[in-house]
């Protein structure tokens, strides 16, 4: 698949599945896969292979991850907006009931954890939960379906699970982190500085030590938030790919691979929901901590 016309190995297959469709700027003088050299001023194009992606560095966009991510976000917004327009005090039915159930669940979670008065936390949590869930849900689509279809349409790479892309998960984690900083400063003001410098050792001599520890602790939050989701989903996706690769190992592997596929998919229903839930709960907890004076 990755290298047309050549014998495809399992590792090629896996690498192909783990490569994003990347649109980026190749640096000047870079020699492309077909022998062309990039002209002066660089060249924006779709990357072909890991070398080109590496050469693009930061000036690149994972078109597939971001596309699926935004697409799923739009689905979320459209679906919930559709319900929001129709929601009334009358007896709800069907889809409206289901959506209201989710909203109530989120609302309870927020009320349990977050005791301040903030109009942002609940919708933020809802967005995170549903969006992350939808992104994770892409994991349950058999790994070959969309990439193969895309290949037929002439698109070389396609990674359809946005949450297996650290850019996506860290993007959200950074969003949450910025909110944490914003509310910490807004609510505590100078107290936030004091919290960073006077904890855990309440003495002026320990200020550097305290500052170091607190800043590490603070920075660990978005990283743990984003990388936890990324790690879980990436590992899950990887196992799906390995199971899919098993299908090509011979006729005897067909049945075990199918059973593994089904078993892992069923287990994954739990994982994707749980990861979405954890991301949401930790967001609420972190923002709740940002609102509370110690």
């Amino acid at each position, binding site marked *: 698949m990755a290298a047309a016309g050549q014998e495809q190995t399992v590792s090629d297959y896996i690498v192909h599945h783990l490569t994003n469709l990347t649109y980026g700027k190749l640096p000047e003088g870079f020699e492309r896969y077909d022998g062309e050299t990039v002209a002066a001023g660089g060249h924006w194009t779709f990357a072909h292979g890991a070398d080109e992606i*590496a050469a693009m560095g930061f000036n690149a966009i994972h078109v597939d991850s*971001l596309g699926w991510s935004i697409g799923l976000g739009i689905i979320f917004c459209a679906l919930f907006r559709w319900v929001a*327009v129709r929601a009334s005090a009358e007896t*709800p039915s069907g889809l409206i009931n289901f959506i209201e159930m989710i*909203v109530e669940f989120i609302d309870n979670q927020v009320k349990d954890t977050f005791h301040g008065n903030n109009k942002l936390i609940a919708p*933020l949590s809802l*967005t995170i939960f549903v969006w992350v869930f939808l992104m994770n849900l892409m994991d349950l689509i058999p790994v070959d379906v969309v990439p193969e279809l895309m290949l037929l349409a002439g698109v070389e790479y396609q990674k359809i699970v946005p949450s297996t892309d650290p850019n996506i998960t860290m*993007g959200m984690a950074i969003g949450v982190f910025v909110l944490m900083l914003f509310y910490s400063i807004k609510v505590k003001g100078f107290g936030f500085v004091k919290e960073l410098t006077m904890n855990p050792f309440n003495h002026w001599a320990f200020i550097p030590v305290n500052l170091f520890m607190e800043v590490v602790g603070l920075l660990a939050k978005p990283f743990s938030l984003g990388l936890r989701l990324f790690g879980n989903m990436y590992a899950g996706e990887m196992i799906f790919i390995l199971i899919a690769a098993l299908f090509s190992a011979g006729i005897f592997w067909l049945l075990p691979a199918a059973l593994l596929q089904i078993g892992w998919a069923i287990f994954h229903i739990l994982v994707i929901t749980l990861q979405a839930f954890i991301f949401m709960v930790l967001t609420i907890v972190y923002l709740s901590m940002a609102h509370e004076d110690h």
Partner: protein
Amino acid sequence: MNINLTIIGQILAFIAFVAFCMRYVWPPILAAMEERQQKIADGLAAADRASHDLELAQKEAVDRLSEAKKEAAAIVEAANKRAATVVDEAKVAAVAEADRVKELASAEVEREKAQAKEQLLTQVSTLAIAGAEKVLAAEIDADKHAALLEQLVKEQ
């Protein structure tokens, strides 16, 4: 792990979706749910109130019933008393009437007895005179002795 511009794109998308959700999704849904909750709570409260009212009404009904029963019992008792009194009065009146009638009767009897006695005496005296007339017809002059007998009757 390739961190690249995707992360910026994701942050922007994140902000956009959260803002949309905060503005257009969360408030209407929650408002509808709260309104419904309020409606249900009102309904339940109304039901509670109604059942409370019913309880009160039942209690009042029971109270009124027992009151009415008491009243009825009192009326019956009074009537019984009145009846007893009437009977007693009637008895007394009857006895008095009977006594009066008896007295009248005995007075009549006395009177008639006296009259009869008088009559009898008159007849006896007439008869005695007749007898005596017959006996004395020969010997005694009736006109002579009549005054004497008349005097005798009067002395009786």
